[in-house]
């Protein structure tokens, strides 16, 4: 894969600009609320501008190859380098992380959750931003790992300090789960490193030489990575941190978690695990697919059982990431395209849903579905937005969700060579049934919250969507519709990159 090294400073700037913001924030006096918010806002805007610059200068004709590549010595002793670059897979997620952070910052301007302390809150948020963006551009396993881990602590504190009643339990659970995964992942990375001749941690290098590893070893190494990434996704047996984390996290936390953090795992599969270890991937694919469809149905059941709006949305993430993983498990470029698209779509939609949940909580002071109702009469705009997002989330054609879901199901009909067709076709049917459940729980939610007449308690403070919320939400809503109508905007970027990634499987 050839590298394009034109203005290779862009990525570094875009990634570490938030750190500058952090330093500025540290010197801003804690009392000066306005200044703090201004700094945070400006930083994230600047970051997004750099992102736009990246987008503009991105050579779409060569979306398949790494661009803005920068590579310098970092830890020569262990042959790890500071090696970054974006291709068609990274770019959408990279930009998504920037945009979402900006929107979250905007939303936070007047929604700093208790116990306040915006300074610390924004510092953590910007740290998160660096970690997330870095993970998507890292082309060196060690660098990837560092960024991957960098995300942990800020999120831990965001949940633990600004979260709900169970926050401490939830945050610790989130942390231990993820750390467990990444510890084994690190071991797997090292094993990969040594099995490929201890030459380099650079992903392209490993992709070239990984296939040479004995199949047996590959399977074990993949196991390590699998646990690391599957926890993050999260896939079926490793998912239980997600509902707690989501439910307890402050709105901003949930949004970032849903929109970006979950993608780190799936991205890891697409970028690292599968290309570097093709034989193991073939071995593992049926299991991944199986867990994925279990996750789809299981998540749906989880949703149906919920009485709490936010928790329901959280469980729906399990189901949706199931679709993504199903697409990945087919090891066909068609399926992986769907998966990458699904990541972005899920990021937009579920992020949006969590925004709404936050605003609902703020207005009704509860997320008990039973206590909600008649939102359309009290806050019609909020209600309609919720409707739109539910529809998008249940995969309605013409909205972004569909293009992650339908092609993923489609792709399961004929997976890559070497995979058992019958198994995957049965997966396909189960997944298709999963879409019905999706419709069931989302519409059920919508019917119970938005329709009907408002429940008794007075909502004197009940106002419809306000300016900050509009500013923070509109981009997401527009994106949901745009990508739904013109999916090629994404697919044309993703496709070539994925083709390259899956060259080991004949595309």
């Amino acid at each position, binding site marked *: 894969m050839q590298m394009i090294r034109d203005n290779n400073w862009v990525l570094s700037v875009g990634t570490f600009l938030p750190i500058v913001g952090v330093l500025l924030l540290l010197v801003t006096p804690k009392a000066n609320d306005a200044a703090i918010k201004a700094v945070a806002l400006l930083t994230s805007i600047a970051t997004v501008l750099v992102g736009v610059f990246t987008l503009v200068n991105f050579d779409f004709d060569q979306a398949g190859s790494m661009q803005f590549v920068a590579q310098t010595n970092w830890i020569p002793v262990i042959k790890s380098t500071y090696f970054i670059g974006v291709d068609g897979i990274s770019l959408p997620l990279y930009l998504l992380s920037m945009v979402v952070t900006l929107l979250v910052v905007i939303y936070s301007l007047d929604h700093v959750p208790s116990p306040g302390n915006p300074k610390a809150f924004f510092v953590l948020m910007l740290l998160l931003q660096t970690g997330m963006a870095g993970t998507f551009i890292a082309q060196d396993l060690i660098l990837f790992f560092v960024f991957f881990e960098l995300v942990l602590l800020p999120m831990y504190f965001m949940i633990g300090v600004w979260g709900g009643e169970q926050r401490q339990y939830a945050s610790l659970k989130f942390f231990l789960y993820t750390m467990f995964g990444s510890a084994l992942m690190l071991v797997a990375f090292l094993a990969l490193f040594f099995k490929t001749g201890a030459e380099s941690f650079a992903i392209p290098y490993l992709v070239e030489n990984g296939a040479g590893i004995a199949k047996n070893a590959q399977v074990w190494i993949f196991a390590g990575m699998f646990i690391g990434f599957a926890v993050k996704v999260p896939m079926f047996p490793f998912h239980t941190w997600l509902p707690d984390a989501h439910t307890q996290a402050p709105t901003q936390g949930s949004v970032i978690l849903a929109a970006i953090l979950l993608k780190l795992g799936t991205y890891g599969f697409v970028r690292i695990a599968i290309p570097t270890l093709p034989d193991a991937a073939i071995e593992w694919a049926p299991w991944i697919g199986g867990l994925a469809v279990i996750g789809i149905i299981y998540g749906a059941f989880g949703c149906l059982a919920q009485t709490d709006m936010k928790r329901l949305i959280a469980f729906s993430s399990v189901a949706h990431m199931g679709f993504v993983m199903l697409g990945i498990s087919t090891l066909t*470029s068609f399926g992986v395209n769907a998966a990458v698209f699904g990541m972005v779509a899920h990021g937009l939609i579920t992020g949006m849903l969590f925004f709404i949940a936050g605003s609902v909580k703020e207005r009704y002071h509860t997320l008990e579905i039973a206590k909600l109702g008649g939102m359309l009469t009290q806050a019609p705009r909020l209600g309609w937005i919720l409707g739109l997002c539910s529809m998008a989330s249940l995969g309605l054609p013409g909205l972004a969700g569909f293009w992650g879901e339908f092609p993923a199901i489609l792709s399961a009909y004929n997976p890559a060579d070497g995979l058992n067709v019958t198994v995957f076709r049965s997966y396909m049917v189960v997944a298709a049934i999963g879409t019905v459940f999706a419709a069931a729980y989302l519409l059920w939610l919508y019917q119970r919250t938005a329709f009907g007449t408002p429940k008794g308690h007075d909502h004197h403070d009940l106002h419809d969507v306000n300016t900050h919320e509009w500013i923070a939400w509109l981009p997401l809503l527009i994106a949901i519709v745009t990508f739904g109508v013109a999916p090629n905007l994404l697919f044309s970027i993703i496709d070539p990159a994925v083709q390259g990634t899956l060259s080991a499987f004949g595309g």
Partner: protein
Amino acid sequence: MILAASEILSPLRDGWFLQHAWLTPVIPTVGFVLIVLFGKRMPKKGSEIGVLSLLASLVLASGAAWQWIQRVGDAGEEQFVSPVVRTWTWWQSGGVEFTIGQHVDGLTVVVLFVVAFISTLVQVYSLEYLRGDRRYTHFFAALTLFSAGMLAMVVAEDMILFLLGWEIMGLCSFMLIGHWWEDGANSRAALKAFFTVRTGDVGLLVGISVLFFAANEWTTTHLGLSGFSIRGVSAWALSGEPNSTVILVAAIALFVAAIGKSGQFPLHTWLPDAMAGPTPVSSLLHSSTMVVAGVFLVARLYPVFFTGLDILGPSSNVIMVIAAITIVIAAALAFVQSDIKRVLAYSTVSQLGYMMLGLGAGAWLPAVFHIFTHAFFKACLFLCAGSVSHSASHHSFDMKEDMGGLRKHMPVTFAAWTVSTLALCGVFPFSGFFSKDEIIDNVGGNGYTFFMVVGLGGAFLTAAYMTRATYLTFFGAARGAAAGVHEVHDAHAGAHDVHDTHAGAHEADDAHAGPHESGILITAPIAILAVLAIFSGLFNATPFGESWEYMKKWVEPRAVVVASESHSGGPGEAFVVSVPSAESGHSESPCGKETPPEGVCYAPQVSHATFKWSKALISLAVVFAGIVLSWVLSAALYGRRDPRLVGLTQRNGLARAGYRLLANKYYLDDLYERGVVGSITGPLARGAYWFNQRILDGILHGVAGISRAVAQVVYRDIDQRLVDGAVNASADVTKAAGTTVQPIQSGRVGHYGALLFATAAVAALVFVILNT
């Protein structure tokens, strides 16, 4: 035999309208966006945008239809009239290219025209009907998008766009049925509708996937089309290539989708509940759009079903069986409804049954023709019902409680209703006769006698229940609201249009002026539809001979082999290379189920029964029998019952003496009640109804309940206890381990020293032994 390519026929004409048929869905979509954005600020609250946009698409559709007729006219008698296809790449992924585009042929233009036409009228009608409604603008937005969805589905060139339109309709039906969602019943009905249809959609998803992967290779190599393209799939289905099981699976899956959408047994239960929506919605849903989509799917991908389900084969196929069951069950259900809209809903279900029956029996053209005629008179009937409830029965739809004797008050509505009823019953010369009788005729003609009998029985029942409904509504004595009595019918709130502001608006005039004719905006559409209900049958009046069979000429694709290299010039310009006789039987044509030697078939060869008046008279007789019988019974049962006497016989003993005298007529009533009517309607209908509510609905709700229960278990026990429990348990174990090994840390030097040396000694011992 294949002719030499030298004999190229003159290229077919295609005009601007045909080229731009794709605009028909686009315009309403734009309209929808405009309404959403600016509707509230418009003088007429956005309704004008809706009406205008649909008017525009109506114009386009008519133009397309006209130009299509010309195109067919140009074509030689047996030339293959290629569809006007335009495609644009939408997106590509993993080497698969997804195109979006239009596919205009006879079927398209017919349905396109019908949909645009009826949508326009319904919008006009709604201007008046929903005036003052709280969500006037939302309503028009949804209505417009709804039509757009249907139109998109109709012009769709490939299955993806088809699916898009299909789902958009589902969404809009959810919004429209639940329009008055303050009432829990309505929102539940909306949910039920969407969910049921969505269940069917699994079939569509699976079907599309299977077709795509099965056909893609063949279509790309032979036609340069993707496996999503409709004509590609059709050609593939007829090429003899497909493995029979694969295509069977595909056909079944797609048919499941059709069942869900077209309310076929056993997924029809959502339809009557959907009556919770405003009447215009019901009329649009049940005449030309939503429910027709399923039938349209089957008609559109006919070759797939033709091959997959072995239509015209010796044995009866699943489509016919389902259709037959639907016809009878639905018709019988119509008897026990007191809600006029529910009667119409069930009649729609049974009419859809007819269409399916026709398709299943290989009577493609009659089925499509029935879509055409049915749209007009069914829409008309619904609008009449709406008009009644709007102006006469104080927004009630209860025939027994709030109607009766309205013919005097609302002549136009009454006339339109009568005409449409006759059409629906299939009375000569109303439109319904030509289409429905044609179906029955062909079913018989293709040798499915049993299903023909079922069809006749259906006709009888149809006639009967429609007569009953007519009598209850327009004849006899005025009752309840129709008689000026005003009580708010919360009892059947679910079935009524309780849209308070609206009701409030009309409270006043209803109060002094009792039942009256509706305004022009309501009557005009009704009148127009009524006229069409009479004459639309003439578009394919088989009884009057070949020259009248316009539909056959214009709409039916000609089953001829097209040179396979024709895709070089785009599948549009195809050479006709073979002219099989399309007259009797299907097996002579190379476009049967067997492979054409070379070249491509786009449509299967179906047969046409030759019309015989004898057969027609039989069915007419059946219909009349139904009407007369039902009339007599209804008149006696509902008409001559005298409330005062009923009351008296219970009241005082003196009257009980003269009771026997007076009772006789009530013996009659009882006789009718328990005897004749009872024997017809009672066991059958009630049984069916019971089955419907308890079993089918039961199953539906049961499934919902079960899955919810399962969900509970999965969540509470498995997720929280097992999976999560394991995690927390491991934490506890680790902590517990701490306590168990705590004695090590006793704090006593002696113990420490002992431990130290003991370990050293043991280790030394072990390694000494190991190393000697």
